[in-house]
């Protein structure tokens, strides 16, 4: 299937889902769905730099929070419409990915990973001390009274936005994966020195990958303030984003765009259940254990199992 066809299909399905959701009366569904969609975007975004290019990003929260806090900033400064916030947050996070990538992707993958950890802490400290967006006390974001497109509740708008953004993220990921750039990224992942000597402009591609990955992670965060109506740093920089954006692609499979979706849906659902029935701390423990178990025993994830099973059948 060509990328154009996929894009058309994805958007059509997205719009269909949005339309169909009008029929669902239960608000909890939207809440849960929003969270899972958020994870799909994060996992897909992470995988562009992680699974496709082979560089681990531990600071997903930094990019997510960049999207969230640029929304807060624009809300306080301009009361800008949602679409402006989404675009700005995405661009800001992309810029961050570009900057961090430019500074650290010349070094070994290990140093990039550690730098991303450092980034999350530095950004967190910065936000905590920035009173305009609420600092440690947090900021209140009021959902607007007028809801466009005649939707009944604001959560529906947020949900619809998320569905469309998810479709966009998947289209972007698949386009990269199947393109020449994607081949170059795979070569970098498999053997960076050999790729460089085969003519692949490794630094340029890595920076591209980091930028797109960061931008999409930021995009996932742009509607978050409206979703919670209140944003404070420990929520935006929550550790669960860091661990989930790694665990979901790893468990689902890092080689293609499908893996992160599977991982996000599975793990996201499990977490929703555990959070409600047991507690959020146990929730995180389970994710952590699954991460370690999968990375040691099933490094290619669920899609890896599927591939191996398919190959055996031939």
């Amino acid at each position, binding site marked *: 299937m060509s990328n154009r066809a996929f894009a058309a299909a994805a958007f059509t399905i997205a719009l269909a889902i949005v339309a169909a959701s009008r029929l669902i009366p239960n608000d909890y569904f939207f809440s849960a769905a929003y969270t899972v969609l958020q994870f799909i975007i994060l996992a897909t975004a992470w995988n562009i730099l992680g699974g496709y290019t082979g560089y681990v990003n531990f600071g997903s929260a930094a990019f997510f929070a960049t999207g969230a806090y640029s929304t807060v900033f624009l809300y306080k400064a301009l009361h800008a419409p949602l679409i402006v916030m989404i675009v700005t947050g995405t661009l800001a996070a992309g810029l961050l990915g570009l900057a961090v990538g430019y500074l650290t992707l010349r070094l070994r993958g290990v140093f990039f990973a550690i730098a991303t950890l450092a980034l999350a802490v530095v950004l967190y400290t910065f936000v905590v001390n920035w009173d305009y967006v609420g600092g440690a006390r947090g900021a209140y974001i009021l959902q607007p009274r007028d809801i466009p497109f005649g939707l009944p509740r604001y959560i529906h708008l947020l949900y619809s936005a998320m569905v469309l953004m998810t479709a966009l993220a998947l289209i972007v990921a698949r386009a990269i994966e199947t393109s020449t750039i994607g081949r170059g990224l795979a070569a970098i992942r498999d053997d960076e020195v050999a790729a460089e000597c085969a003519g692949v402009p490794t630094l340029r591609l890595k920076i591209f990958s980091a930028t797109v990955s960061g931008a999409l992670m930021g995009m996932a965060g742009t509607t978050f303030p409206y979703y919670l109506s209140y944003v404070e740093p420990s929520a935006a920089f929550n550790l669960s984003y860091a661990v989930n954006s790694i665990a979901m692609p790893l468990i689902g499979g890092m080689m293609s765009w499908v893996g992160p979706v599977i991982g996000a849906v599975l793990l996201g659902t499990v977490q929703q259940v555990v959070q409600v029935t047991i507690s959020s701390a146990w929730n995180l423990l389970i994710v952590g254990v699954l991460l*370690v178990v999968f990375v040691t025993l099933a490094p290619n994830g669920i899609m890896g199992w599927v591939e191996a099973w398919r190959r055996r059948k031939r």
Partner: protein
Amino acid sequence: MEFPTALVLNAIIAGLLLGGFYAAVSVGISISFGMLDVVNIAHPAFIILGSYIAYIVNDRMGVDPILVSVVVSPLFFALGMLLYRIYYLCFEKRGQESLRGLAFFFGILFITEVALVLIFGVDYRMVQTAYSETTWRLGPVDFPMRLVVPFLVSVTMVVGVQLFLTHTFFGRAVLAVAQDQLALRLMGVNPTRVKGLAFALSIATAGVAGAFLIVIQPVQPAIGREFIGLVFAVCVLGGMGSIWGTLLGAFVLGLAESFTSTFFGPSWAPAVSFGLLLAALAFKPSGLLGR
């Protein structure tokens, strides 16, 4: 405005005392990452684990945490051996250390933190020692015992590790394995075994340093993550794998943090180590003593 001599002197002393402790915390990373090329970002997890064990024993039996650490270090040594075994079998042998090894250690770090939260909650825990309240005063300068004692034992431990590496057969094997595994094999020494023992040593130092930590400040599970930037900053600044470099880097970091805390407020302190790390990575990755 008159020059704040007392403030500066105290910042310097606090910085140096903390620096000694930071060296103890980081010497393990100098071994595991600097020499063995194992990206053990779970190192801080063992520091925090050491803190909590010291806390439990101190709480139940009133024993000084530093004594606890020494007794408990074989436990961490064994833990280190086990961890390396898993890492070696699942990652190093398969040549997948980079991405998956990182994810593995991150998972370990994460699990440790969450498990501690489940067991102990998020409240800060502290210890009672004979000297935690005592402070020596020398003119305008304070020497709080809760910093001095860990400083002394930290420096002792770091120097001890350095002497061990340079003066014992096994220590020199570790230095050798960092440089030329083939040569080591030709000498009849199994590099994997040497690496396993060296890694175990690095984890043991982490556990011990954890006990020092809880003397200096109260701990809670999330502190581990803050230390990641610190230990890697010290390691990178110190030139990756040089113990003397680690000491130097640690002092630099201690002073930087102390001055930031004194003049800009303590809420900026965590950003210092990470900021220094980012700067070091971006501009001089070979460290202060450069290779």
